[in-house]
C-alpha cells in the first residue's frame, strides 16, 4: 500500500533541537493491521531524497524507550501498539536541510503465518522539515 499516512508530518525534525544537528527524526505508524511485540520488527529502511541510510545509523523509539535495530530481536515484552507512532532517529551529522524532502520508509516484520519472510510495508511521503 502507498501508505502515505504511515509517515507523520509531526515529528519530522533535526535532533538535537538546539546546537549542531547529529541527525533527524521521523514518526511512523505500522503498515500492519495489528500491534506486535517489538521483537517481531526485523528492521526499518530510511531513504531521504535518494540517500539510503545504513541500518546501524537508525534507532527506534517505542513506548519511550530507544533501541538499536539489531537489539530488537532480544526483546520479549515490549509492545509496539497498533496506533502508536514509533520514532525513527537517523544519525547523520548535520541532519537535514530545512525544506521539502522526499521520504521513503520500509517496515520489515516477522509475521509467522506469511508464506514469505519478511513482510514488507513501504511508505512514501513528501515532508517539510521546519527545523
Amino acid at each position, binding site marked *: *500500500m502507498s501508505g502515505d*499516512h504511515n509517515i507523520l508530518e509531526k515529528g519530522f525534525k533535526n535532533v538535537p533541537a538546539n546546537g549542531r544537528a547529529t541527525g533527524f527524526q521521523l514518526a511512523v*505508524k505500522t503498515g500492519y*493491521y*495489528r*500491534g*506486535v*511485540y517489538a*521483537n*517481531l520488527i526485523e528492521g526499518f529502511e530510511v531513504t531521504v531524497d535518494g540517500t539510503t541510510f545504513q541500518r546501524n545509523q537508525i534507532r527506534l523509539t517505542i513506548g519511550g524507550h530507544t533501541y538499536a535495530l539489531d537489539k530488537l*530481536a532480544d526483546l520479549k515484552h515490549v*509492545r509496539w*501498539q*497498533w*496506533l502508536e507512532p514509533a520514532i525513527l532517529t537517523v544519525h547523520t551529522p548535520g541532519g537535514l536541510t530545512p525544506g521539502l524532502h522526499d521520504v521513503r520508509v520500509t517496515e520489515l516484520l*516477522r*509475521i*509467522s*503465518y*506469511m*508464506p*514469505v*519472510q519478511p513482510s*514488507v510495508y513501504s511508505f512514501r511521503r513528501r515532508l517539510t522539515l521546519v527545523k
Partner: protein
Amino acid sequence: MARKKPSTSKRVKAALSHRSRSRRLSAARSATKLGVTLYSYGGDLHQGFMSLEDCIADVADMGGVGIEILGESHVPDYPNPSARWVKQWFGWMEKYHTKPSAYDLFVDTMFYKKRLLTVDEAVEYLLLDFKLAHRLGFKVLRQQWAPYPADNPADQMWAPYVKSTPAMEVIEKALPYAERYDLKMAVELHSPTQLQSPWMDSCLEFIAKTKTKHFGFTPDMSIFTRRPPRHREAQLFRAGARPEIISYIRKAYQNHLGPEKTVAEVTRMKGNAQELRWASIAGVYHFSDNDPKDLLPLLPYSYHIHGKLWEMTDDLREYSIAYEEVVPVLKEGGFQGYISSEYEGSRVPGDASEQIRRHQLMLRRLLGVRNGR
C-alpha cells in the same frame, strides 16, 4: 496437474453423525446472527477518522449485533487495558445493543528470530488472550491455527492451514484453559484451506475423541474465492506490475502450481518486486477451490463465520465469492453463530461502511433474516 483430494474418513464421519442430526433439527428454531469485525474499519481507525465507539455505532446502525475485535488492534494497552476502558467497552455494548461475538488472536510461533516457540510457550501467550477475551465478555475465539511446520512436507503449499502435530498439541494443552474461561477455540479456516484434507480429518478426530465443545472452526468465506479481488490487481498495476505477468500468476495458481514454483517462474521471467510479491501470495486469494457442500460436516463444530468481502458490486454480489452458493449450505447445516462481515478491501477512510452495508443487506436477503438477532 490433478490433485488428490482425500475424503473425510468414514470412521470420523460415523463418530460425528449423531451431532450433525441434532444440529439440523434445531436449525429450524434458530437464526444465524449478523455482525461485523472491526478489522473491517482498519483504515478509518488507524487514520483516526473513526473511534472504536464510532465503529460499534456504525455496526448497530446497519442492524448488526455481533462485534468482533482483534485484541492486538483494538484494545488499548494490550494485553492489559484499564478497568475504566473495560467498563466503557461494556457500556458501548449496552448503549448500542450489540454483543461481543468473537475475539481474534494469533499465535506468533516465530516470536524469536532463532527458533520457534515451544508448544508450552505458545500456550502461555494464548493464555494472555484467553484472559483478556474472557474479561471483555467473549465466548468465541477466532483463533489462528499455530504456524508450525506441516507433518507432511508435501502439504507446505497450504501452510499454515495444514495437519501439524505441534499445532494440534497447542490445542490439546490450551483446552483446559479454554474450558476454564468458557471459550471456544474456533480455529479459522482461511484460504488456502482445503476442506477435504488430512488437517480437517485430524481436527474432527480430535473433536470426536474428546467430545469437546471448546474447539472448533471459524470458516472464512475466502475459502470459496473464485477469482482475485479487483482492487488488488488494480493496486499492482499502479505499483508497476505488468498485466502479462499478473495474468501468468493467475493461471499458475489456477493450475495449482503453488507459491514456490510460481515465484521461481516469475523470477525466471525477470519479474519486478511487485510481481514477485504477488506471485508468493496470490494463492491466498484463489487457491482454495473448495466445494461449499464440503462445509457441511464442519458446521456442527463451527462457532463463528468470517463473511469475507473485498468488493460488493452494485447488484449486491461479492465480486470474488459466490455467497449465493454458500449461504444455503449454512442454512442446511443449521449454523447458529454470527456471520461477521470482514471487509478486506480499500483502507481509504470512509470506504468501509458502505461496502459493509451492502454485504449485510446481501446476507439478510440470502438468510431471510429480519433483524439480525
